[in-house]
């Protein structure tokens, strides 16, 4: 069951085009990776999907509904959440206040307590630090908070932009284990990562984005082949 479908997306900033016809899909319970070098357009792609970057053309469908050009807050309320690069938690607010803000995007207001309980189960450290200022948490804890904050909105599709940024390898493994669990619970998870190996070994499919285009789509088996991955990542010439 396809939850997210991006069709021939073109987007950019001002007069500068960044994406040149990107297409991809993500189904229920699927974990999809998007990798590529700096400036490939990965974050722009997420921005275009969630409505913070203007579309030139193309469409985004969420569970069959065209959400292209809708406002970010309306897109979140329809069930698509983004964990932005650098986490962007509200450091001056407490952990529970951050989580409560995440509830703003829920479609079902009755399930708020259940949603908070679920993320506390998934990230027990957030219970321990419930009333602590979010800015005082460690990097890994802040990342968990950012993911939890997106999850309480009960998204059908969860986008994560560079979730490993600034985290130690142990913490990264912990975070990615939780992401697998989230996907297994039925959410479509799409992860943008510059460190390709982190996501290629977990994702059912990994799209290699370069110069604003999907240059290759690799299965888990394809991505295990270092030569194939390197060729897709840097281009056939290996430049």
């Amino acid at each position, binding site marked *: 069951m396809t939850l997210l479908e991006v069709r021939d997306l073109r987007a950019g900033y001002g007069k500068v085009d960044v994406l040149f016809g990107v297409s991809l899909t993500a189904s229920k319970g699927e974990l999809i990776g998007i990798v590529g070098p700096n400036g490939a357009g990965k974050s722009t792609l997420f921005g275009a999907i*969630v409505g*913070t970057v203007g579309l030139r053309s193309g469409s985004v469908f969420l569970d069959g509904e065209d959400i292209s050009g809708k406002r*970010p*807050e309306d897109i*979140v309320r329809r069930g698509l959440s983004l964990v932005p690069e650098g986490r*962007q*938690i*509200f450091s001056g*607010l407490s952990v529970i206040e951050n989580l409560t*803000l995440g509830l703003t995007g829920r479609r079902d207001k009755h399930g708020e307590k259940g949603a908070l309980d679920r993320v506390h189960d998934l990230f027990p450290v957030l219970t321990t630090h419930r009333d602590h200022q979010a800015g005082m948490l460690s990097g890994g804890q802040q990342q968990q908070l950012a993911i939890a904050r997106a999850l309480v909105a009960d998204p059908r599709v969860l986008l994560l932009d560079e979730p490993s940024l600034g985290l130690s390898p142990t913490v990264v493994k912990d975070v990615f284990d939780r992401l697998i669990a989230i996907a297994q619970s039925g959410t479509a998870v799409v992860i943008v990562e510059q460190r390709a190996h982190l996501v290629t070994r977990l994702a059912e499919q990994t799209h290699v984005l370069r110069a604003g285009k999907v240059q290759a789509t690799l299965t888990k088996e394809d991505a295990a082949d270092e030569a194939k991955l390197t060729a897709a990542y840097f281009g056939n010439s290996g430049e």
Partner: protein
Amino acid sequence: MTTRLRLQELLGPILIVIAFSYVVGLQSAQGLLIVQSTLALFVMVLALHVFVGNSGVLSFGHGAFAMFGAFASGIVTTPSNIKENSLQLQNLYPFLVDLNLGMYPSLLLAIAAGALVAGLSGLLLMRLNGLAAGIATFALLGVAYNIFFYNNRIGPGSQALLALPPFQFLEEPVVLTVLVMLVVYLFGISRAGRTLRATREDPLAAPALGISITRVRWIAFTLSGAIAGLGGAMFAHVAGTVQVQDYYLPYTFMTLSMLIIGGSASLWGATVGTLLVTGIGQILLMMEQQKPILGIVVHIPNGTRAIVIALSLVVMLLWRSEGVTQGREFKIGMPKLRK
């Protein structure tokens, strides 16, 4: 623990405001007047705190809501016989001549007027950010000023509206102020208040959570407009008179200074700023008027008070931009027991 600390954040400022009111207000008639006008200004500062402090968007336009509140309350509490016979009110709409309300219903009208003007103007203004928002709210103040200054169908125009019933007891403005503090505090800890502070902290991250920045700002702007309407009306009933000039630039500058000097982000900051600026202002005013302070007469030139407050604002913005309280709420540290 959390509940106690939160109550402390509310009760601390309330007790200090009550203490100030009774200590100064019961000294003399002059003291009573100082307290009543300070509380009226404080309500306006609280209005600014609700919007400016929580959203981080500067507003120069709240004087407009105070104007609407003051004139709404003033017109309906001025006795009909005065409205009929007053030269400056001879062009008043007839229904306004006949309309008479008591002070408290008129304060509700002032709240409604402030909320209505803020709500309607906010539909457009809340789409703006940063400098554009500040300038647009300043334009709103200019529009309101010119409406009241030149239109003598709804008020006395450039003249003063006289014979408003003044507050009879010290308790009246004190109770109103405490009620406003409670409303402001409850808004601050509500989901809307938290959401607004989140948009102040990171306006880019907020929409990614499904937060409509325009909507939460509009809610706060309307609430703060209602409070400013009340503050304006209270100011009118302290003096027993309303004049449009009273709510223009000096009023805007004074109340914004109080908020910024104290710390715009907290109820405690608004309280400290108002009391501090009032206290310093009164001492300097006495010096300007060559009145003795503790038996000593110090003379300073007229206008020194305004200059000192303006310079304090500059100093604060340069070296302590979050105000005296650094945006913190009132909190008494628990004494540690020795082992």
